[in-house]
């Protein structure tokens, strides 16, 4: 009986370790093995960097267009307007990241307030 209780406590952690940790770190390890074969000035590095950047950009677009949680209740046009304004201000402000973030947040929160969501 006691070992059953033990298993019940441990099982979620084992689940997280296999489905979370192993499923994630395997790609990090493969990345090391792949990256070890690429020299810094090779054309392959440019390709790998392009793919990595495009992937992150796709994640960003997904976070904006298909968010989960509270943001789901906000209109997609507001989210796009907030990010676009933030990005333009970032460019104008000589690529100051903080300026872009503050602007995007201000537009988002202002929009939420005005629309009474």
């Amino acid at each position, binding site marked *: 009986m006691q070992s059953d209780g033990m298993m019940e406590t441990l099982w979620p952690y084992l689940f997280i370790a296999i489905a979370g940790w192993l499923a994630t770190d395997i790609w990090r390890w493969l990345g090391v093995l792949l990256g070890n074969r690429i020299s810094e000035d090779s054309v392959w590095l440019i390709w790998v960097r392009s793919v990595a950047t495009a992937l992150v*950009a796709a994640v960003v677009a997904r976070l904006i267009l298909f968010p989960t949680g509270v943001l789901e209740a906000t209109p997609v046009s507001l989210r796009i307007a907030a990010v676009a304004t933030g990005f333009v201000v970032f460019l104008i402000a000589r690529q100051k990241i903080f300026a872009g973030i503050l602007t995007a947040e201000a537009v988002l929160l202002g929009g939420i307030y005005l629309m009474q969501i």
Partner: protein
Amino acid sequence: MSTQPSFRQRPWFLLGMRGIFSIPALVLTSAVVGFCGFAYEAGISYGQAVFMMGIIWALPAQFVLIGAILAGASLPAAALAVTLSSMRLMPMVAALVPEIRTKSTPTWVLLVVSHFVAVTSWVFTMERLDRVPREGRVAFFTGFGLTLTTVNIVVVSVSYGVISHLPAMIGGALFFLTPIYFLTSIWASARGLEVYLAMVIGLVLGPAFHMADEELGLLYAGIIGGTLAFFLERLIAARRRAKSAV
């Protein structure tokens, strides 16, 4: 060189640690607070939430895993969903490794520190690499990655259960920090034309492929978009070379 490598590397480790007081670290920490609220609402226990934060160390994978647990997915199904979302880490690590290793960096060291690679630490390090001499880069990255991971494990253990009392609007604002931060910081840190191209193409292809295939869409967008950006960059670079030759 008369100085020992360990002496030369120490300040770079400390400088990396200091990165915890930076906008990227602040943004990630806010996102982690958002994760806490999600985990709490989903019924993930305190210990499991803390464990997840440290051992997975990739917020999208953590959200996917909790989603799978909520849906009552089996272990293989949950692992498959998580592994699909984590595949993007491979090209990121592969792009980072040639920039930080030296000829004498042992592979096992890279395998160990690769655990700290997630979008924030990747963007942060890529942005600052040219200010760090090659022999200090692994130390710099490790200093930042280790500190960032440790601090955020502490953040989860402190803010779990507290966040559920915050108004929804603040949760939304915290969540929104991540996309605008990634967008601006990658743009600011780009050192080659291919990064700008890949960024724009990825932003367009991401949602398009997402609607076609929710699970693999991200990967398609990365591989196809990245390859497209790569060839465009090659084309433009060749044109420029041809022009300067004339």
